[in-house]
């Protein structure tokens, strides 16, 4: 103490310096404790128990900031009996500057999903500002930046090798709003596949690359809003897409129709997925599998495309049953497991679990089904 005072030339100096050291120590302790407490343990390795290994859900963890909520969501997916999840990983979030990757959030999602025994299908998209012209929206990607997207997708595939088995390239490119509010362009989307697919496969030959994920729509020819998904898919094949994807992602909503309703090119219903499959067969792509990466019914009382809550449950379970019978389909993920916050609109009636993690009746009924039980009605 005296030596410090002597060295610093003032009798109070020693107290001041000791005070500073104590403050520094307390700060370090606080930070270390905070870091420890904010880390959510992965827990023991889990296994999904289900009678239907094709069952899946589309989670919405992209904007879920709290790790315990990520873990809780994925635990509930497992206990519902669904081994598959589709999750969105926005490029702009994880590469905010060229070559600078921030993997903390996807690490948390994927690590927890794997620990819960879930297989992750990753949807990639959402363009960072640096990779698009000024005054464009994040779904705008021009050909000049396809390779930038490819580098991100390759980095993602390499990082999560063995942990993410499937990657979907883009979402619903047959809608103008999903194509940066430009006219839709199947040939342009195929060019994207031709650039990005080889880059991903080089980085991780094991990962399965899914194309498509087309919005089911009856948009008439020349519509400014979008293109009929069956027409768009055929144009993808015509443009040479076949060698640039491993599996096809299909969106197959039931709207107000029952799951068993017959497929019809003039109707958007669940079995439209079979018409999409027919396009694959017509183009000699029978060797490829497909996945339904969005589907489901909505039971909002005032939405014109909704059904009653009971019909929603019955159709959901029927869709899982039909998927189990379709040999060409690997998995079906229904939209959406849980939202980070209430939309306060009809969108909330797509979910299986409330934002407070309260299981909705549909969750409990699907859980009963996955365990071999019958609906409680």
């Amino acid at each position, binding site marked *: 103490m005296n030596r410090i005072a002597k060295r610093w030339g003032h009798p109070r100096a020693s107290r001041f310096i000791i005070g500073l050291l104590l403050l520094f120590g307390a700060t370090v302790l606080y930070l270390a404790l905070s870091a420890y407490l904010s880390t959510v343990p992965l827990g023991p390795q889990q296994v999904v128990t289900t009678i239907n290994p094709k069952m899946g859900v589309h989670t919405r963890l992209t904007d879920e900031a709290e790790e315990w909520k990520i873990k809780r969501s994925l635990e509930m997916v497992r206990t519902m009996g669904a081994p598959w999840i589709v999750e969105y990983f926005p490029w702009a979030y994880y590469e905010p500057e060229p070559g600078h990757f921030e993997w903390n959030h996807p690490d948390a999602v994927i690590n927890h999903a794997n620990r819960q025994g879930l297989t992750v299908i990753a949807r990639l998209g959402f363009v960072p500002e640096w990779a698009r012209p000024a005054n464009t929206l994040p779904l705008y990607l021009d050909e000049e930046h396809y390779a930038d997207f490819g580098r991100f997708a390759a980095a993602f595939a390499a990082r999560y090798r063995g942990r993410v088995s499937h990657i979907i390239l883009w979402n619903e490119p047959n809608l103008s709003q999903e194509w940066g509010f430009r006219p839709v362009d199947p040939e342009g989307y195929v060019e994207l596949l031709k650039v990005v697919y080889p880059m991903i496969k080089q980085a991780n030959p094991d990962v399965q690359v899914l194309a498509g994920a087309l919005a089911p729509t009856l948009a008439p020819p020349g519509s400014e809003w979008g293109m009929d998904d069956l027409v768009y898919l055929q144009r993808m094949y015509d443009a040479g897409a076949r060698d640039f994807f491993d599996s096809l992602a299909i969106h197959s909503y039931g709207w107000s129709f029952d799951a068993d309703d017959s497929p019809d090119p003039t109707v958007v219903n669940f079995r439209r997925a079979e018409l999409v499959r027919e396009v694959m067969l017509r183009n000699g792509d029978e060797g490829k599998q497909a996945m339904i990466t969005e589907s489901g019914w909505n*039971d909002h*009382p*005032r939405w*014109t495309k909704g059904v*009653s*809550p*009971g019909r*929603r*449950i019955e159709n959901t379970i029927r869709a899982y049953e039909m998927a189990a019978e379709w040999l060409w389909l690997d998995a079906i993920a229904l939209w959406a497991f849980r939202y980070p*916050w*209430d939309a*306060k*609109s*009809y*969108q909330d009636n797509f979910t299986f679990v409330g934002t407070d993690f*309260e299981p*909705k*009746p*549909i969750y*409990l*009924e699907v859980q009963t089904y996955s365990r071999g039980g019958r609906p*409680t*009605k």
Partner: protein
Amino acid sequence: MSGRIFGRFPAWLRTLLVGWTTPKHRPVALIVSILVLGVIGSWLFSQLLGGDDDQTWEHIQQTGAWRVGMDPSFPPFDLLDSEGNPMGYDVDLARAIAARWGIQVEIVATGFDGLTDALMAGRIDSVISALPHDPRLTADLSYSSSYFEAGVRLAVIESSPISSVADLAGKRLAVEWGSNGDAEARRLQRDEPLIQRHTFSTPQEALGALLNGEADGILVDGVTLRQMQADGAGIVAVGPALESTPYVIAMPLGATMLQEEINAVLADFVATGFLDTLEIRWFSGGFDQ
């Protein structure tokens, strides 16, 4: 120099600006400064809070028209008649409020999901469309007090001894399968496993079970309950809503005058029984579409 410049100013300003330089004037300068700063501070504070500068209310007063956004697809609150004109509980409510103010209502039909965006974009002045209060949007919108509770209620026959969910042990609850009422029943069962949950395909079938004595109570949303009562079912709601869903009127943030005026009228409508009249009118099921 300064004397020449400041000599032309009023005495109070001269005191404020140069009074500090003379000990004699310092107390006066201090008081004047505090007063001036107080006035400026109050003005800034009122600006920050939106103050009384309610442009929405001013616009309504100037034009004599109240632009009300509504999605006319939710009977009996919001619907269209056979000629495409808006009608329903909310339309009557809007007209009654406007009548109090001596102005006209202009109903703007908008999809439900676009209502709040239209409000924030200034396309409409208010939303009246069976709109549930959303705490998450209170940073962007202002809400009136509630005019209808649409949350899940426990309903029983009028002679039932059940007066709340606390009396449900060993009792049979009828619900529409998969509905919010079903969700609440399952939640109640977790706390009281002796509650028996009976599911039906429709709310009407659940009501039938209650009236036939096959169930002791039903859990239904407030709108359905009110429709059942209006149709003559002798049932009453007991206890508060299990999951509150208050319908409110939305308006732009900062529309404080408009909010005050609406709340005052709604309070009066409650006191005079006008809201009850609206319920009887629109939940009787006999209106022409």
